[in-house]
């Protein structure tokens, strides 16, 4: 009887440890999955020169950059935004490394950009500093030639939450 309880306890402990290792991705079980083949369209890209806009020293400046421009407009939007964010971080216009996780252009010409975290410092930055970050990115998207009328800025697929600016509304792209 005692041996039976001991065996049961050891099996339970082993199962628990195995489940923990699986949950923490220390052990990974790869099941056979259907194979995907990339279509020719999604990997096509071309070189494109597009300006990136930044607000520095109380004025707007633009930096012409060579971009590897995907033919898919959704990927192009994502690539452009990530490029802008990378340059902004290098120029110390952003105080943290922010990336775009998802980007999408809807049929009614609205762009949806989802960041992995908020690009703002909520307890330090002025409203003007927040606006020029968003406006710089917006102007860069406008200058790229993508057919977009407005941009929705999001974090983790939810509207970017800010005390001063309402991102539930589309940020306009001025023509």
């Amino acid at each position, binding site marked *: 009887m005692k041996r039976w309880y001991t065996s049961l306890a050891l099996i339970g402990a082993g199962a628990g440890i195995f489940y923990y290792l699986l949950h923490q991705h220390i052990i990974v079980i790869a099941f056979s999955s259907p194979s995907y083949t990339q279509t020719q369209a999604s990997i096509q890209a071309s070189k494109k020169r597009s300006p990136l806009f930044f607000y520095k020293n109380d004025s707007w400046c633009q930096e012409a950059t060579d971009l590897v421009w995907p033919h898919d407009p959704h990927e192009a939007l994502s690539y452009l935004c990530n490029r802008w964010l990378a340059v902004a971080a290098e120029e110390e216009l952003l105080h943290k490394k922010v990336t775009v996780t998802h980007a999408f252009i809807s049929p009614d010409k609205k762009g949806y950009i989802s960041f992995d975290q908020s690009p703002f410092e909520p*307890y*330090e*930055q*002025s*409203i*003007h500093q927040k*606006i020029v970050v968003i406006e710089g990115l917006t102007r860069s998207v406008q200058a790229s030639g993508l057919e977009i*009328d*407005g941009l929705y800025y999001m974090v983790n697929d939810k509207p970017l939450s*800010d*005390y*001063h*600016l*309402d*991102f539930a*509304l*589309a*940020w*306009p792209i001025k023509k």
Partner: protein
Amino acid sequence: MQIKFIVIALLGIFSFDVCSKQAKQTFTLVIDPAGDTQYHGRIIGNQFERNLTLECAEFLKKELNAIFPELRIVLTRFPGETPTPFKNASFANKIGSNLFISLMLYQQQETRTVAIYLFGTQDTYQPSASTPLHFTPLYKVHQPSAARSKHYAQQLYDQLAVTLKKTGIVRAPLAVAFAPLEGIACPAFALELSVKNKHDALSMTSELVNALKDVIDQALTTQDHA
């Protein structure tokens, strides 16, 4: 005896009518100091923005009431209040406010800066003339008074640009999707001031009083009443 009673009753009705008409014509200014219990705001020295904006708003109220005794000035919050989303807009619309000013502060040791913001979106307002009752989306409520908001903001900017010409920067009014001004039906704008500390904040607020004086004066004289 009956005639005396009738005369007194008529006088009472007449005085009530005069008083009610005067009450309707009272110009109401709503001041919204930034921050609440959920958002303490930016750090200024050893204080949070929400405490300092409340002090500045109370100072502004006292100074403006001294200049315009007939003005009714209402603050949107008191210490410890937790407003729900759009509570300030709902409150301002319900009391029939004539002007709404949102006040914000942040710390900056270098140049003094004043920025003026309005609520604005891409969409244009198309009032429904066919039905007297209709729902207006929250982000379009401001549009009937957008022109006046812009006019008052521009007037304030012109005043401040002269006052702070040598000591600071004044940014021209900018219309963006400004959350604290969303849903407000009366003319509304927001002011964001950069300050070094509490003393600087009160000093900037007193300069603001002089600039706002002309804006309110014009609003009163043009009989911009609800």
